[in-house]
Each structure stands twice: as structure tokens, then as C-alpha cells.
């Protein structure tokens, strides 16, 4: 079947232009719904990544007494090196420990004033192979001379709460997005239906002179596809912008690394694919229902 590309492109563009108000409505709805989809996906990636980072950060902190002797420090170090669960360990001396304490106590100026490097306990900060073993490993250090406290640091309860809230947020966003996607599908369907109606004379002549069914259908289907695609591209742009925003927030408030580009690319591809699908499905249904060839 020789459907010339020229003809199809010309017809599709002419249709879109003739029907531009409807097309614009369809495109905008696709854009809005897909930006929601994209943003929800992005949010999910950021939160999961952040929570992952925090949960893998379960660590064991062995606080030494501020006046622990070098020998006591050494004995603890030996204990640590003998413990197979501990994968790595770093020692924070008075000065570094003090710097960290200042960050922790930033909200409490009085406590901060009382604190000097000399009286800040030094800390062994260790990473564990398995986060669940943290309490058991911590108990090894209780009662060892010079040890003030062995402390397993878990992701706080607040992380769990945050996870729940973002889950709900995601569900809400996706629900809105799905409703909008359905309405954009209906809008595309309607736009194509109007296009078919506007061109009923041409269509009847085409049938009469023996144009094949696909030849008649393709410009309409392509029109739906183009609407979906344009909407998706706009949405992809919005997702890109919101990614910049999210990255800014991540950098400033979570002081962790931003999302890798590959995940952004995946999100954008998903957005474009959904847009094209919505366009194709909408126009296919319209063509099947309203274009009886």
C-alpha cells in the first residue's frame, strides 16, 4: 500500500490546525496529567533513594569517655577489629567530634556554649554488615573500660512516617494523574471524532474512489498520536523543571547527592510513552467508532 508520507503529513497537520482549539485542550490535559505522573515518579525515586541511604546508614557509635586513656582507646580498637560484623570504622578525635556535636546541638546555644573540644567524648563510628545485628554488637562494648556508651543508630521513626506520607502523596498524585489521563484520552477521542466529522465529505469521496481503509484512517490516528506526543513533550519539559527543583531541595535540605541522570531519563521515557499511548488509543477508538470504512 503506497501511502505517501507527504500526503499523510500534510493531512495530519491540516487537521490539527483546523481543529486547533480541541487539539489544544487535548494536548494541555495530556501535558498536565503526564507532568503529575512524571513528578510522582520523580518524588518516588527521590524518597526511595533517600530512605535507602538512611536505612543503610545504620551504624554503631562507640562513645568513649572524654578522659579515656590512649590505652583504653587502643583496647576498644582491638575489640572492634575482632568483631566480624563491623565492616569499617573511623575514629573521631576530640576536635572532629566537637565539630559534629556543634552541628547536632545547633538549635541549643546554651548546651553548645558549655561544650569544648576537650570535654567532648571521642567516637568510633562503625558500619555494620547487617543493620539488624546492631543492638547485639553494641552490647559487646558495654562495660569495657573507657567506653561511655555503645550506641546503635537506627533510621529514626520519623523516616518511617515520612515514607508513609510520601506513599499517600504518591497514591493521590497518581490517582489524579489517572483521572486526568482518562479525561485526556476522552478529549483526544473527541478531537478526532470532530476531525472525522469535519472531514466527512472528504472521507465519503475517498471511500467512493477506492482509497484503502488504512489510507483513510492513518491521518486521523496520526493526529491523535501527535496530540499525545506534544502533550507528553510539554510534560517532559515540566518534569525536567521539577527535577531541577527537587535536586535543589535535595542538595539543600537532605545534603545528599541528587538523582542520577539515568533515573530522570527513565522517567521522561515513561512520560513520553504514556503520552503516545494515550494519543494512539484515543484516536484508534475514535476511528473505530466514528469512521465506518
Amino acid at each position, binding site marked *: *500500500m*503506497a*501511502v*505517501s508520507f507527504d*500526503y499523510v503529513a500534510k493531512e495530519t497537520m491540516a487537521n490539527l490546525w483546523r481543529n486547533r482549539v480541541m487539539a489544544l485542550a487535548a494536548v494541555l490535559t495530556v501535558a498536565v496529567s503526564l507532568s503529575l505522573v512524571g513528578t510522582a515518579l520523580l518524588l518516588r525515586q527521590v524518597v526511595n533513594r533517600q530512605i535507602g541511604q538512611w536505612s543503610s546508614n545504620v551504624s554503631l557509635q562507640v562513645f568513649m569517655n572524654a578522659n579515656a586513656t590512649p590505652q583504653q582507646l587502643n583496647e576498644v580498637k582491638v575489640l572492634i577489629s575482632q568483631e566480624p560484623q563491623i565492616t569499617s570504622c573511623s575514629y573521631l578525635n576530640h576536635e572532629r567530634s566537637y565539630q559534629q556535636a556543634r552541628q547536632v546541638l545547633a538549635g541549643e546555644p546554651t548546651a553548645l556554649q558549655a561544650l569544648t573540644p576537650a570535654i567532648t567524648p571521642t567516637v568510633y563510628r562503625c558500619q555494620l554488615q547487617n543493620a539488624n545485628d546492631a543492638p547485639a554488637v553494641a552490647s559487646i562494648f558495654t562495660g569495657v573500660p573507657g567506653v561511655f556508651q555503645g550506641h546503635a543508630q537506627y533510621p529514626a521513626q520519623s523516616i518511617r512516617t515520612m515514607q508513609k506520607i510520601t506513599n499517600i502523596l504518591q497514591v493521590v498524585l497518581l490517582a489524579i494523574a489517572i483521572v486526568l489521563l482518562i479525561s485526556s484520552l476522552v478529549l483526544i477521542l473527541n478531537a478526532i471524532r470532530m476531525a472525522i466529522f469535519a472531514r466527512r*465529505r*472528504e472521507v*465519503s*469521496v*475517498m*471511500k*467512493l*474512489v*477506492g*482509497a*484503502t*481503509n488504512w*489510507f*483513510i484512517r492513518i491521518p486521523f490516528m496520526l493526529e491523535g498520536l501527535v496530540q499525545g506526543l506534544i502533550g507528553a513533550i510539554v510534560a517532559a519539559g515540566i518534569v525536567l523543571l521539577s527535577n531541577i527543583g527537587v535536586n535543589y531541595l535535595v542538595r539543600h535540605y537532605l545534603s545528599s547527592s541528587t538523582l542520577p541522570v539515568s533515573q530522570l531519563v527513565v522517567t521522561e521515557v515513561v512520560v513520553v510513552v504514556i503520552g503516545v499511548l494515550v494519543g494512539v488509543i484515543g484516536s484508534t477508538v475514535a476511528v473505530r467508532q466514528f469512521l465506518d470504512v
Partner: protein
Amino acid sequence: MITFDNVTKSYITGIDALTGVSLEIDRGEFVFLVGASGSGKTTFLKMLLREETPDSGTIWVAGRDIGRLPPARIPYLRRNLGCVFQDFRLLPNKTVGENVAFALEVIGRPRGVIKTQVTQVLDLVGLGQKIDRRPHELSGGEQQRVAIARAFVNRPLILLADEPTGNLDPATSSGIMKLLERINKTGTTVVMATHDVGIVDEMRRRVIQLEHGHLVRDQARGIYGEASETQSRSISSIAVGAVAGDDEYETGFVERRQVRARRGRR
């Protein structure tokens, strides 16, 4: 070229559009299809285009049983059939040239071919000068010429015309008929449904008359005639026509038809 074999069609509304119609139209014939409104003429033409399918019976067009044509082949059937209507059915937003070219564009003809064929066919119908006009700038007769050009540009085997002169004055009509005759002379079979007594009587071509879906008359070199009151006269004139006529395809067929028509009257 066209064969109807005992074709029956009724619509869901309960109307019997065609009942047991059998006839044969040869290549290069010029046939008038006459009968009152609702007699089944339009259904007859629609079946040739396979816009409708018979409930029973077989229709052969150009050697193909079109009732058994798979839907995907229907467009290719229609490329062999040109169509002209009372209301012209031109596209108002396209020029004369574009209207004619459209018929070739949508069946995927290459652009060079389209250009030469459009010019040729517009010269044939006498509108070569008006290629860039729009339909609303033309008279009714000119618009119908454009429609004929569009129907004929692909050189179909058969030209179907559904009351092509219905909207035109007698002088213009006779111009259109001359054009259809010319097309017929190129070897194209022409089937024309009409109410125009003057044209049928003047042209003296084969006349097929339908009445309530029944074929009541099939007459070589016929006249428009009248409905059932004059049927016996028509039938006798068929006999005369058949005997006197040099078209041997008529004879046996017409006799069969006469018998059936008489039976129907008793």
C-alpha cells in the same frame, strides 16, 4: 461486465428493496435504470459499489463475485467504478483541479501521473480553463462535469450515475448526456439511474425498469415508459424491440422476464 443473479435485498425496516432481480450488462453498454422513487434503483447502484450486500443471490462485477469480496478488497473494486451523483459531491474547499486530483491522490498515484491525467480529463469534459476555480464559482452543469471528470479520471470500467441531471436544466442536461455518451464510446460501461423522461426517450438506449424492487422491464432501445398501467404495452414493446433489435443478448433474457412479470400480475 455486470451480472445480477436472482438478487434479493430487504432492509431491517422491512422494506424489500430488490426482489429476485436477474440481469446482465455487457461491457460498453449504456443502460438507463428507471423507476419511481423507492423502486430500488439506488439500492441497485449501492450493491454494485458494495455499500450494500444482497440477502441472497450473486452479483458479479468485472468477473468477480463481489458478495464474497473480503472487506479489504472493496476499495480495489471501487477503483473500477466511477460514481456521479445528483448533488455533485465536490469538495468545496478544493479547486476543480484538486477535486479531480484528490481521486488519484488517495489511491496513491504518483504526482506526475496525477498532473497529466487531471489536465487530460478536464480537457475532455471541457473545463481545462477552469482548473483553478472553486466549485461554488461554477454553474451546476460545470460542477457536474467536474464530478464526471473525477469519476472518470482513473479510467474506470464502469461509470455509475445516480440521477446526474436531476439538478440541471434541459439544455445543460443534454450537454451532460453528450459527455456521458462520449465516455461510453471509450468503452466504459455506463449505468445511469434517472427520472428524466426526455433524456431516456431521446437517447433510445437499453432501459431497465424497477418497480417495488421487481425488475418489470428490460428493453433494448427503450423509452422511459410509464409505471404498471402501461406495463403490458411496455412488455410488448420489449418483444418488438427484442425481435427488431440487433442486440442478441436481449432476446432470451427478456422473454424470461416477460413470463415472470405476467405471472406476477395474475
